[in-house]
């Protein structure tokens, strides 16, 4: 058992993977000397050197493209995008190249790279540094999508991502880097692609991922005090999506809230809502309720920023309304 932060768990995952497999290397802006904008790679350069913590110019499209080429040539790059907000510059390389190479080339070769990045609100970083863009990735066939919400998962999901044969987009949450947990990393993780039930309750099911797991658990605690018991599912990976775990929780309860920090319209919450409705229709007492980001850009004003995405209060309040 050790007390570890999310940040350090990620660092340890990179450290351990790089120790085990000399083909793993990190490439991105400020990943080496600087140690990463959020400190995830701090110190790794001392152990592994500048070739394996490769600082790049500010050239996001070419960073992703370089990782693709390196992956095709046999190595395992971990490309870092400092903010997921910069993914817009790389969508061609990511979605037209990395995601399609195995398919277009008839299965000849894959692109075993991990694109590490971070998103979400929480630092008054404004409209271009606070987004949750996972829906774009989830919509693209050929990409895996991982969004760890806990320290333990930060470690193990990154280790698992680094064993995948296909490109993985790994999105951390900027508001989670400092959280810490007492964990035993030697406890074997769930299989790749499995969701985890973080809390069990018989009144409603909350399906979520990344930072919203914490918001949901906080809300669930508050609700428990008022006699409402929620099950909280942490999806952990959005592709693969573990629908079995969702179904098992939803069918006996029939009340579901899906929570995502991304904008409501055409987002991850829409997919979850549609899928749950399709597969569990006869069990639902109410429509699946989406609690998501407002359909607005994120403001730098802290007050507006906070109100633009789901809060524990909104989740709890919504749950109460669902159970009236």
């Amino acid at each position, binding site marked *: 058992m050790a007390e570890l932060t999310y940040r350090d768990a990620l660092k340890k995952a990179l450290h351990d993977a790089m120790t085990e497999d000399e083909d793993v290397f990190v490439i991105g*802006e400020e990943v080496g000397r*600087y140690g990463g904008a959020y400190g995830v790679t701090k110190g790794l350069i001392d152990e592994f050197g500048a070739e394996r913590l490769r600082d790049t110019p*500010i050239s996001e499209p070419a960073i992703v493209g370089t990782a693709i080429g390196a992956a095709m040539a046999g190595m395992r790059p971990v490309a870092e995008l400092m903010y997921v907000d910069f993914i817009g510059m790389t969508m061609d390389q990511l979605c037209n190249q990395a995601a399609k190479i195995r398919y277009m080339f008839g299965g000849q070769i894959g692109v075993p790279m991990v694109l590490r990045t971070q998103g979400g609100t929480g*630092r008054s970083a404004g409209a271009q*540094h606070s987004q949750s863009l996972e829906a774009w990735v989830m919509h693209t066939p050929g990409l895996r999508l991982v969004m760890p919400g806990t320290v333990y998962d930060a470690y193990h999901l990154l280790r698992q991502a680094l064993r995948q044969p296909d490109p993985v987009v790994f999105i951390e949450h900027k508001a989670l880097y400092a959280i810490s947990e007492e964990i035993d990393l030697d406890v074997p993780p769930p299989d790749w692609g499995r969701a985890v039930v973080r809390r069990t309750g018989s009144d409603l099911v909350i399906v979520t991922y990344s930072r919203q797991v914490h918001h949901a658990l906080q809300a669930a605690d508050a609700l428990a005090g008022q006699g409402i018991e929620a099950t909280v599912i942490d999806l952990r990976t959005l592709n693969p999506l573990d629908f079995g775990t969702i179904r098992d929780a939803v069918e006996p309860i029939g009340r579901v809230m899906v929570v995502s920090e991304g904008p409501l319209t055409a987002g991850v919450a829409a997919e979850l809502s549609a899928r749950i409705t399709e597969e569990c229709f006869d069990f639902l007492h109410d429509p699946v309720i989406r609690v998501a980001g407002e359909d607005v*850009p994120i*403001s730098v004003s802290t007050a507006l920023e906070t109100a633009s995405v789901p809060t524990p209060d909104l989740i709890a309040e919504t749950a109460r309304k669902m159970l009236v």
Partner: protein
Amino acid sequence: MGERNPQTATGSNTDLVGLYRQMRRVRTFEERVGELFVRGLSAGSMLHLSIGEESAAVGVCAAMKDGDTFTTHHRGHGIFLARGADPDRMMAEIGGKETGYCRGKGGSMHIADMGLGHLGANAIVGGGIPAVVGAALVAQQRKTGAVSIAFFGDGAMQQGILYESMNMAALWDLPAVFVCINNQYGMGTRIDQATRATALHERAVAFGLNGETVDGLDVVAVRDAAERIVDAARGGTPGFLAIDCYRFFGHARKDKSPYRDADEEEAGRRKDPVAFARAALVEAGQDEAELDAIDAAAAAEMDATIDFAARSEEPPLSSMFHDVFAVGEPEPEPLAVRIDRVLARN
């Protein structure tokens, strides 16, 4: 076209005293931004100070005229101020307040003001560059005589969109200027760690633009170079200007620059365009008391910005739904309203 320097309500900037005054205002403003942060009044820590780069902002703006437009990078306070911004509204914006230029939605990295031709600061490195191509295109088609200037850092020299934009500007003979404020660093990366091609203007020349590099120590030299480049652009030959300077402090407020050594930093900070201008003025017989008065006026002016920001209100929560689309268009339905509607089954 108007005269150069519409911003000089407080005196001509074409003489060195005026340039000095503007640089001092910029320097002092940035110092107050630091204070705002320390006092917990800023919205977040993503504050990028242009201390050490004042000659770039002031020198280039001295070559601009009424009607010209520009975009900046994330380190753009000094440029906007030199172009005539109201420092109160800037500071309020940096504090995320309703009285700010963007009503607290934009913050330090997204200040803009259409009245002064500021098409926007940008938090995406290189993101604001191509907009000047469009603005220059409009100036050309409408024959307004205006130029449009993109300001960005040395880090943006490695963003492909710069080359696409410069190529278009050259191809179409646009009144566009690309100004690279080379403070030697992009976060922790020194320019020679980002490229082998450190003679930055040569890249622009290879794309068919007018290109120069100027030492930012001397604001007069910067202004003169900017006038050459900007005037040529006004005449249909787009240009590029790199201004060498040094980022005196960390990348943003929390960065202590551990990646560079103290000696280098000390030497870099000796390349101080404000001190250099002051020394040159004194050397030329300028009355020091007058310079002190300028400094004092700047201090008073900028002190007031903090009070203004502190006194200003946060934007109302309802403003969250404004301005996604134009006024008059339906606003997005707030989630809570929507959820109530769904649960009420209507």
